[in-house]
């Protein structure tokens, strides 16, 4: 008889198991809207999963023969993902139509969290692929969740079609990796290959397939349509969570690659970064709709983060994870503000609609201004240090040209980010915004926290950077 496999270590999947249980329970929750138990159950599940993170911290729990490696990097990413989910819950409670605010919505969101938890902790390409698919299938449906909205279905179908092609490209990369090395484990990248000629092609295909999740060229065109068509709470979530998960996978790929695969990988990162900066910034300049502007700005932000990936030897891993942390705070804040301002509106919020917001809702105007300044990269916000560390790592690793492009792109980005601030503070009497809700809401509180954290990461960047580099000790030391 064959030996029974002994390495079934469910402990290393503790947060995922909690989330999965919650997702299944939510399918049985009846009703929708305020009276329903859906939101409390979902929030409780996420908080319990969040509580499991410190429990596992520092243990580097390994299970299933190295297919799951729950190290500190994975746990840090998971904590960020769960916080993102909580903020998107607050947005959903405010902005989703009552009838659609039901158990299925939260169930699919928890499924996507399971997928991302698997992705960030995976040590095997096939496990990464399955995590990606669990994430993708739930998000496709969430984007089209309000089926009555035509734009929503359009966003969903575009997201689905491009996403499926990106998965097929990733799979081709997986197949070629298997052909080259005889294994799909990430550690096999460094082992001597049977057919080394296939490795560069495999590495490029894997990265391009993952690039869909971070909206990097050539799979970036979905972002504006999906953000505009999806419910705003889902757009908030998609603009942050999948990017964090995909960047952790990219960090692992970049850290494990060697030889010919490494050069191809570096080339792919540089190409995606430069193309993303060009496309994102130039298109963002022309936008009148706030959400589309933020979508193109998200493409550009992902391109800045990509600079840190080929520069792992110069502390790129810490810089990337610090940038991800700050990106979460500022982009989540910007989208949460957008969700707050555009709730119960039909049609998209144009930038000109914000005119005079400073006099009518000074608190929200201030918050949105802080997020815009942080996204530009102006001190004393965290956005400045995020860019600074990534650029510094890029220069030290010898990618001066890319960093110069990024600096020019940052200057260009001032125009569209600061235009929002100018409109809010400089112009009078926009007709677009009437009847903002008064009082403190859950979403308002979340926006407040994001403002504080955005500024705090700018005041004490060293603290956060140290925490980030402690999360990826192997990558920081080994490369």
């Amino acid at each position, binding site marked *: 008889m064959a030996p029974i496999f002994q390495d079934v270590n469910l402990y290393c999947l503790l947060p995922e198991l909690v989330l999965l249980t919650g997702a299944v329970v939510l399918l049985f929750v009846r009703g929708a809207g305020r009276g329903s138990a859906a939101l409390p159950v979902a929030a409780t599940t996420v908080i319990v999963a969040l509580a499991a993170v410190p429990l596992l911290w520092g243990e580097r729990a390994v299970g299933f023969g190295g297919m799951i490696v729950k190290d500190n990097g994975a746990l840090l990413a998971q904590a960020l993902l769960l916080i993102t989910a909580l903020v998107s819950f607050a947005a959903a409670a405010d902005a989703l139509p009552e009838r659609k605010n039901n158990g299925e919505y939260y169930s699919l969101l928890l499924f996507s969290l399971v997928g991302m938890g698997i992705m960030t902790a995976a040590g095997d390409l*096939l496990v990464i*692929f*399955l995590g990606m*698919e669990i994430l993708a*299938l739930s998000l*496709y*449906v969430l984007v*089209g969740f309000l*089926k*009555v909205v*035509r*734009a929503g*279905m*359009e*966003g*969903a*179908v575009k997201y*689905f*079609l491009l996403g*499926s*092609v990106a*998965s*097929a490209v990733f*799979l*081709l990369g*997986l*197949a*070629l990796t*298997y*052909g080259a090395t*005889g294994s*799909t484990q990430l550690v096999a990248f460094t082992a001597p290959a*049977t*057919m080394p000629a296939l490795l560069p092609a495999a590495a490029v295909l894997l990265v391009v397939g993952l690039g869909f999740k971070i909206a990097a060229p050539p799979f970036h065109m979905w972002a*504006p*349509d999906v953000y*505009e*068509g999806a419910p705003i709470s889902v757009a908030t979530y998609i603009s942050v969570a999948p990017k964090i998960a995909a960047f952790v996978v990219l960090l692992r790929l970049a850290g494990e690659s060697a030889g010919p695969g490494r050069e191809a990988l570096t080339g792919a990162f540089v190409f995606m970064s430069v193309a993303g900066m060009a496309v994102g910034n130039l298109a963002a300049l*022309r*936008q*009148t*709709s706030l959400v*589309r502007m933020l979508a193109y700005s998200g493409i550009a932000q992902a391109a800045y983060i990509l600079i840190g990936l080929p520069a792992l030897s110069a502390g790129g891993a810490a810089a990337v994870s610090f940038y991800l942390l700050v990106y979460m705070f500022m982009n989540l804040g910007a989208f949460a503000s957008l969700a707050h301002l555009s709730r119960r509106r039909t049609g998209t919020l144009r930038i000109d609609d914000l005119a005079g917001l400073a006099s009518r809702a000074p608190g929200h105007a201030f918050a949105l201004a802080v997020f815009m300044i942080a996204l530009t990269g102006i001190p004393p916000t965290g956005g400045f240090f995020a860019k600074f560390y990534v650029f510094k790592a890029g220069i030290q690793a010898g990618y001066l040209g890319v960093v110069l492009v990024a600096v020019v792109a940052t200057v260009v980005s001032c125009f569209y980010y600061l235009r929002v601030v100018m409109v809010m503070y400089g112009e009078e009497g926009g007709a677009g915004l009437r009847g903002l809700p008064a009082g403190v809401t859950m979403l308002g509180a979340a926006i407040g926290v994001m403002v504080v954290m955005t500024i705090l990461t700018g005041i004490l960047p060293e603290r956060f950077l140290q925490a980030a580099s402690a999360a990826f000790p192997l990558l920081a030391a080994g490369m």
Partner: protein
Amino acid sequence: MTLYHFLGLGLLLFAIGAAGFVIRNNAVVLLLCIEIMLNAVNLILASFARYLYGAEGQIFIFIIMTVAAAEAAVGLGIVIALHRGHGTLAMNRIKDLKG
């Protein structure tokens, strides 16, 4: 027969699927093109399993088949909802969103 014959056929099929995805206009046909691409990947995996590494590759194929089936189910659901909302599946006519 060598590994290269099967590898070449697989890559050719993948390229045909990708080209079809880029040029066709009907959402259902785009789904069909994605299926061609996934099948091409399966063929490549099977040939690696046959000529180089043995059993493992076949397990990957089973998993990819399952994923393809799940993707097709969700994708066809989206297509049905799209058809209900827009009354067409021609991608060039489905563009309310721009900028």
